[in-house]
Each structure stands twice: as structure tokens, then as C-alpha cells.
């Protein structure tokens, strides 16, 4: 049993991973999964409706789970179908998250009115919409950095309401009960001209594929635009009719007809738009499998196994930790590869993917370190960073679709794959050195488990990783300079993000020179390495909060408090590191 422990742990985790990959199928009679796979053009790229539903729910309420007004838990697709075709029901879903109590009083609501005290429905807010508009107009002229918490919450909620209202115009205008009936008569089509126009203006979805198959996404149209070009029933695009039929069947609870119409449309798509259909299908599967959530839980398991291994059964538990971390790494790798394939881009394109990649890079280094040292230290550090970065990534995903289009100046796969990947690897390794140092300090001070051999091994690891970090952060920073010289004419412009990267390089250089000069010994190097976490966190997130410079891509204030807490915790660990050696439980009575 003890001998096979690591294999058993691995097998159990593997079983769970496989279970997340099995398509869940439809729980009811409607083919919701098939509906979720339908491709539409939104935000500049072809994506499945499933992505629209999930990112929409995440943005509005911070989670993908939705509860219907009748109390039944529904899939994101069911919510989206109600928004499109049964808006009067959709308006009663409690999917708007409001955390700020002052904002609640705009609508005369109390916490008791909301689902879990924080989620409210569109209908509950309807009476206060004019006041929300007024407050938004008051808040908008204030610069983002200077807005109060109330103003920020107002602006955010207003943008969520706008997103929701626009979504309602996506496939048919609210107020039209049965679009199929309206489209069967020339007079009625003409009478709805204004409604079609507002559908075209408000909706940001373009679900109607071009008449002639083409790879250029620009040919996809909004339902409104397509209908504005139809003067009589015979001129209505058949794809508009498909969505009209789906809407009618959803409203009238006709699963057989719904599934039939859906099936023939999907057959047609896979024949005429095989690429779009295949990509959407795979993206919907990727959304459902949620590889990064799976990976996140596996990192927790790996960390617990590694930490326990220092107290009991070091050999089998240490190996189990290593294997489970390896599995988590594998799942995250597949997730990152899937994103790269979907986007056709290198792994790091925005803040969200930088979080994924920093975790990935750190864990990759830890897998190597653990092979060399086999003391579960690298497994613990790796799973800690893997977990932390995935939590950060999850929070970053709340702002919308994470597969965004690249703005013109960033649209260069060559520089994204060289500069961005290298500098992010520099971040990852600086964090890793810092977390290894935290393990050294906490184990040495609070437990008796840090023997001389482990301490020396840790010191070697930290030193090696700092060297690695110096190399990558330096090369990455310089490549950034070269990109800047190529694209806007100066090698170095003292932009906040550039300065942040430079600070990491300087800090790593300080650690190395302190060590080479004998200015610090083991413990001092560990304290310096922990401060590397502060420098890196500031460079990664802090610089974005300044709101100046070419690299700033907007930010939320929640992250600011997160950063403060993180910096404070790191300073506390450094404070622990400088406690006199006599107080260190591991070194008591041992000459350090």
C-alpha cells in the first residue's frame, strides 16, 4: 500500500481528469449542446454561442452557473436561449452581481432581495434604470483612477446592463413573439423595418454566415442587417429563418422540431463552413472541459501531498506529489495548446494568458528541479505557484472573452512569441526563486524538518533559478526594447511596463552580486529572493494600475487590494527571515 501510494494517487487523479473530458450530453429533451456549438462572429472572431453564454454569465455575475426564475439550475445555453427568445423570463434571472450597497439603493433593493444577497434580476433593477443612467453620466467624466468605489460600481453595472440589452437584440428584437410568422408576409416585413434596424445597431453578434462560403469573417452579418436587405419572404436568408424557427420551438417547448432544425443547420454548416463548424465545436468542448479548473484542483492535491511528505512518509508521498503535479502540468499544457490553436497565436497575448504561462513555466522548472533533488520542495513551490496563477487567471477571466483580438500595434506573432514569452519566463522564474525561498524560511524557522542537506540543496536551487531568471528577464526586456525600436522608434522609452521589467533584471543582478561578493549568505539570499516576488508582482500588475504608458490595458481595483495584501505577506516573510538564527527551530544548536 505505502509503496504503491503514488501510483494510486496518480490513478485516482487521472480518473477524475478523464471524467471531466467526457462530454456531458443533454440532460433534457432539447439539444442544447448542439445549439452551443453554433458558430457566430463576435468580437472580431468566429466563436461558438457557448462562449457567448459562458463569458457573458462570468462577466455579469462572476460564475457560469445560472438559476432559472423557477429555481431550477440551468446550463449557460438555456439562459442564452431565454435571453434571445423569451426575454420576459430572462429578465427574471438573478444574474446581475451587485456588491456595492450604495448601488443597491439606486434601485431601492436590499440584500434580502437578491440571490445569495448579491445577485439581482434585470426586472428588479428596471425601475431604477433612469437613475443608473444619471449616476453613470455623473461618474463617466471622472478619470478611472480617481473614481470612488460607488462610481466604479455604477459604471461597471451600467456596462453589464448594456451588454445584456444588446444580447437581447442578437437573434430577434424583444417584443416579436414569433419571427417566423412575421417573415411570411411582405407587408409585415416592411412594417418591422425599424425593429430590424435597431437589431442591427444594438447587437454585436453576427450569426448569419455569408451566402458564398469564404474564409473572411467580414462576410458574416447580423440578423438585423440581413433582414434589412430582404423585401419579401422569398428574399429572407434561410439562416435567419433557422434561428427564427429555433426561437419559436424554444418558446413553444417543441424539442423535436427544435432538434430537427438544429441538426439540418449543423449539417449544412459542416458542409459549407467546415472550418468554422469544427473550430466552434472544439472551442465549446474546451469551454466545457475547463482544463484550468481541473489543473487548479490538482495543484492543491499536489501541494498537500508535498507538504505532508515533510512530516511523514517522505518517499512515497513526495513521489505522489511529483506525479500529481506532473498531471496538473499536462492538463494545463493541453489547455494552453488548445488556446494557441484556437487563436492562432503564441501562448501569451494578454494579462490572462500571461498568468497561465507564468504558472506553466514555473511548474516546468519545478519538474526539472524535483527530478534533480527529490525532496518535494520543488513540487510544493511549483504547485503553490501553479495554483496561485490559475486563481489570478480565473479572476482576470471575469472581464469577458479571454481570446481577444490583438490591437494593431501588438499584432506581431514574431515579437509576441519572442519578447513576451521570454520576459514572462523571466517573471515565472523570479517567482519560483521567491517561493522556494519562502519554503526555506518557513520550514527552517517553524519546523525541524530543514536539515543541512535540504537547506544546501534549496540554496543551490534558488541560486540556479535566480541565474535563469536573470538571463530570461534580461533577454526578454532587451527583446522588448528591440521591438519598441522596430515599431515606434525608440529602444527604451521609460514606459512603466518597461521599467517594471528592468526592475526585475536589476533586482536579480543585485541578488547575484550580493552573493558573489559575500555580502549575504544563505539566509540573506533567501530574504532577497522573497523580495523578488514583490518586485515581480509590482511589475506584472502594479504598472498596469498606473493607467499610463503604451502597455497599460485597463484594470480593476480589486486587483489593487490583492497586490497590497500580497506585498504585505512577502514583507512579513522577509521579517521572519531576519529573526536571529537561535530562534530557527531547524538550526537550533547547529552551527549555520
Amino acid at each position: 500500500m505505502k509503496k504503491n501510494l503514488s501510483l494510486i494517487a496518480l490513478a485516482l487523479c487521472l480518473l477524475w481528469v478523464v471524467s471531466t473530458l467526457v462530454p456531458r450530453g443533454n440532460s433534457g429533451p432539447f439539444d442544447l449542446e448542439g445549439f452551443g456549438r453554433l458558430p457566430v462572429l463576435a468580437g472580431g472572431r468566429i466563436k461558438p454561442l457557448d462562449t457567448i453564454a459562458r463569458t457573458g454569465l462570468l462577466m455579469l455575475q462572476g460564475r457560469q452557473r445560472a438559476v432559472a426564475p423557477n429555481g431550477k439550475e440551468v446550463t449557460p445555453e438555456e439562459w442564452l436561449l431565454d435571453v434571445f427568445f423569451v426575454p420576459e423570463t430572462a429578465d427574471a434571472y438573478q444574474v446581475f452581481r451587485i456588491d456595492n450597497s450604495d448601488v443597491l439603493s439606486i434601485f431601492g433593493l436590499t440584500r434580502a432581495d437578491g440571490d445569495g444577497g448579491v445577485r439581482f434580476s434585470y426586472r428588479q433593477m428596471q425601475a431604477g434604470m433612469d437613475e443608473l443612467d444619471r449616476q453613470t453620466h455623473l461618474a463617466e467624466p471622472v478619470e478611472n483612477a480617481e473614481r470612488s468605489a460607488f462610481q466604479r460600481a455604477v459604471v461597471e453595472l451600467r456596462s453589464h446592463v448594456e451588454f445584456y440589452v444588446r444580447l437581447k437584440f442578437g437573434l430577434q428584437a424583444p417584443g416579436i413573439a414569433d419571427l417566423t410568422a412575421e417573415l411570411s408576409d411582405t407587408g409585415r416585413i416592411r412594417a418591422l423595418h425599424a425593429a430590424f434596424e435597431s437589431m442591427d445597431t444594438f447587437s454585436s453578434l453576427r450569426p448569419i454566415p455569408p451566402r458564398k462560403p469564404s474564409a473572411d469573417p467580414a462576410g458574416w452579418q447580423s440578423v438585423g442587417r440581413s433582414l434589412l436587405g430582404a423585401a419579401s419572404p422569398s428574399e429572407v436568408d434561410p439562416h435567419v429563418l433557422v434561428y427564427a424557427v429555433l426561437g419559436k420551438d424554444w418558446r413553444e417547448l417543441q424539442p423535436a422540431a427544435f432538434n430537427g432544425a438544429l441538426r439540418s443547420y449543423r449539417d449544412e454548416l459542416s458542409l459549407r463552413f467546415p472550418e468554422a463548424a469544427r473550430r466552434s465545436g472544439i472551442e465549446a468542448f474546451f469551454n466545457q472541459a475547463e482544463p484550468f479548473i481541473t489543473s487548479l484542483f490538482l495543484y492543491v492535491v499536489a501541494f498537500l501531498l508535498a507538504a505532508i511528505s515533510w512530516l511523514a512518509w517522505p518517499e512515497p508521498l513526495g513521489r505522489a506529489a511529483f506525479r500529481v503535479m506532473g498531471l496538473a502540468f499536462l492538463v494545463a499544457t493541453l489547455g494552453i495548446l488548445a488556446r494557441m490553436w484556437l487563436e492562432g497565436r503564441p501562448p501569451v497575448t494578454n494579462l490572462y494568458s500571461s498568468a497561465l504561462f507564468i504558472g506553466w513555466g514555473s511548474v516546468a522548472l519545478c519538474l526539472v528541479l524535483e527530478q534533480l533533488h527529490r525532496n518535494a520542495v520543488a513540487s510544493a513551490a511549483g504547485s503553490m505557484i501553479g495554483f496561485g496563477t490559475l486563481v489570478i487567471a480565473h479572476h482576470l477571466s471575469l472581464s469577458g472573452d479571454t481570446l481577444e483580438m490583438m490591437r494593431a500595434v501588438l499584432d506581431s506573432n514574431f515579437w509576441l512569441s519572442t519578447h513576451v514569452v521570454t520576459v514572462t519566463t523571466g517573471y515565472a522564474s523570479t517567482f519560483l526563486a521567491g517561493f522556494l525561498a519562502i519554503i526555506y524560511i518557513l520550514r527552517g524557522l517553524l519546523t525541524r524538518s530543514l536539515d543541512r542537506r535540504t537547506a544546501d540543496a534549496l540554496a543551490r536551487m534558488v541560486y540556479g533559478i535566480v541565474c535563469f531568471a536573470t538571463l530570461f528577464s534580461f533577454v526578454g526586456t532587451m527583446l522588448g526594447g528591440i521591438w519598441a525600436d522596430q515599431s515606434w522608434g525608440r529602444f527604451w522609452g521609460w514606459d512603466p511596463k518597461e521599467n517594471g521589467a528592468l526592475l526585475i533584471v536589476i533586482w536579480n543582478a543585485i541578488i547575484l552580486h550580493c552573493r558573489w561578493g559575500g555580502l549575504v549568505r544563505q539566509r540573506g539570499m533567501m530574504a532577497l529572493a522573497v523580495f523578488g516576488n514583490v518586485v515581480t508582482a509590482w511589475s506584472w500588475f502594479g504598472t498596469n494600475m498606473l493607467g499610463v504608458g503604451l502597455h497599460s490595458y485597463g484594470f480593476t481595483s480589486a486587483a489593487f487590494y490583492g497586490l497590497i495584501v500580497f506585498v504585505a505577506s512577502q514583507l512579513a516573510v522577509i521579517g521572519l527571515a531576519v529573526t536571529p538564527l537561535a530562534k530557527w527551530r531547524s538550526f537550533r544548536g547547529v552551527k549555520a
Partner: protein
Amino acid sequence: MSKGEAGRAMKQGQTSPGPGSGGPSFARSLVSVLASLQLTVALLALSLAMIFVATLDQVHLGVWGVQQKYFHSFFVMAKVPGTDFAVPVFPGGYLLGGALLLNLVTAHADRFRLSWKKSGIWLTHLGLILLLIGEGLSGLMQRDGQVRIDVGQTHRFVESFRESELAVADVTNPGYDDVVAIPVARLMGQDVIQHPKLPFTLKPLAYYPNATLRMRSQVTNAPPSMATMGDGTEMIAEPTPVTYKPDESNWPTGYVELAGPEGALGTWLVSEMLDQPQTFTYQGRTWQLALRARRDYLPFTLTLGKFTHDIYPGTDIPKNFASTVHLRSDDGRDDRTVQISMNNPLRYGGYAFYQAGYANNDHTSVLEAVRNPSWQIPYASCALISLGLVVQFGISLFGFFRKRGGAVPQPAPARPAPSSP
């Protein structure tokens, strides 16, 4: 490399005075301080603090203001509260960079020996020296400006972002203008300005780096204008503080008095805020007077053929900006069409032209023009440093694996590795 070894090398430099000491012991100890690793660490730490504070200060000063205050200066100055008196409070970029340079060079002259084991450090430090020199040169020599061209127009000059000049042009001949450009530095002084091409002299009466112009008729109880001629007689100029915000502009403004041999011709208000030059006649010739962005004339012309601005379908996210430009050199050797787009500049005649922006509903393309003779230095230094780091850490890593490979631990790990395996 081993820590003990480097530590010893440094201590030797510090403590052992070397043969023939005594008289030059002060010089000797000065050298060992200048070459010391302690100084390196202290300078790096000061740079770290300075860059951090400068980055925070960008919120108030903007990127350009911060560059002047922190990086392109010897000392960071701050005003004593309540006064206009500025005192140095922190070393600036030039001082820290220069000190690091000195520290590096002295360290190599004093305590580093050329050896294969140190080759990586030598390369890295050499590259770093080059990088610091290159940045210093860029700070001194780089000039940047912009070219704004409408579709179909031809231009042959670069306009400075921040510097101005007073242009006095004889426009009598319809075929060409004869322009005398006076740098604003002269307008800040008191001296009368003379030029062989000008039949009159100019006397600066006032100069404001930034001012707002208002019509006198719109201000109640407006004081009389200093200007007696031109558009300025109906306006008043109110000096305002210089702004560093990226989305705001400064409007340099001044008053000049023109005088011929027969006496004063009048006082003109000149300002960048005035769109059109002011015209007057003197001795039968027509003259124009304008305060404008400083122009650097090019030995070639650029003609904008087409400007395109692509977005992703269904969004307003920009996908690409591109200018199709016809380049024609004065000597006739170059006559070709080039495309300038994001991440794809035109390098020609010592300048690099970048697609920077657009205006007028995609009718005007804004190109940024940068002239930096030292632009290639960072490329060379980056290559050197990267190579140096790879070599140095490679040597360490190789040593580590070799040590692991030998199953028996080395008997005396502190001793330098033997020269033969």
C-alpha cells in the same frame, strides 16, 4: 563560479595594499572602493529606487517630464516646500549610469583577470558598458518629430514635438519662399536679432512657453494688447503653466518688435496657437511671420498616396494602419513607393518613419520621425550581454552536473576546481 572564489578576489582588492604601498595608499583605497562589489550593489539599489519612484511619478509628469527629471539628469531636484528653490534630493540617471560605468571599468582594470571561467562575465560587462554608453548617446543625440501628410500632399520636413521656431519668410516670389528660422531660445533673451537676409531687426519683448489666447472682445476690462500690428491687436495672451500631460499641448507665445533703419515698424503677437502666418509688406516685399514647430528639412520628399485603417469585422478594434508613401530623393537616385505600417517602419536618410496615428477621418496620416545615429548600439550590446549570460550560467550549470555526475563528493569543495579533469 564559486562564491568563495569571487568573495576572496574582492577582499584581496580591498585589503591587501599591494607592493610598494604607502604614498599612493589613498589612491589605492579609492580604486578598491570604486572597483568594489559593495559599490555595484549600492548603485544598483539606488537605480532600483529611482526607477520605481520615477515610474510612480509618471502619473503626474507624463513620460517626457519624468525622463527630464529623473533619467536625463545628474540629480533629481525637488523644491523646498513653500519656495521656488530647488535642491538635489537623489542621484539622477546620468550620475547613476556614469557611476556604474566607472565602477565596471575600474573593477575590470583592477580585480578581474582574463580567464575562460570569467569569459561570460567579461562579455556581459562589456555589453553593459556599451549599453550604458549607447543610452547616454541616445539621450544626447536622438531627435524626434512628426510628419503629418494629407492624402495627395507632398512634404519635405519633420516637425519637432516640443521645440519651436519663429519663421520670417519673404513670400514675394510666387515660385519659392525665402525663410529665416529663429530658434525660440533667442526669443527668451533680450538681444536684438539681426540677419543678413532681413532688412529689419527683431526685438523680443516677451516669451511664454505656454499661453492661452483669447479675443479681447470676449474679456471684460481686457488690458490693452502689447501688439500694435497683425492679429494680436485684438487678442490677449495669458501665460499658463507648462503641461506634461500626454493628451495636452503647450502653446508657446511671444511678442516681437520689428524695426527698420527708419524706426519701429510695430509689435506683433506670435503664437503657435495662431493657425495662419501673419502677413505684412515692407519696402515693397511681402513678408510672413509665424511661430511654429521647429522644422528639420529633409533631402527628399514624401508623398502620401493612400492611407488605410483596418478594423476587425464587427468591432472597433484596430487591426492595422498603413500609409502608402512615395519617396523621391533630391539627387534623383531614389524614386519609389514604400509602405509604412504598424511594426514596419521606413528607414531612410538617417531617419526612421513610423506609422504613429491618423486624423481628419483617415484623410491625414501621422508619421513619427526619429533620427538617432546611435540606434544600432543597443542591438550589439544586447547580443553581447545575452551571450555572456548564457556562457557564464552555462559554465556554472556544467560544473553542477559534473559534480553530481561524480558519485563521490569532492573532498574539498571550497578549493577551485583543478585545471585538468
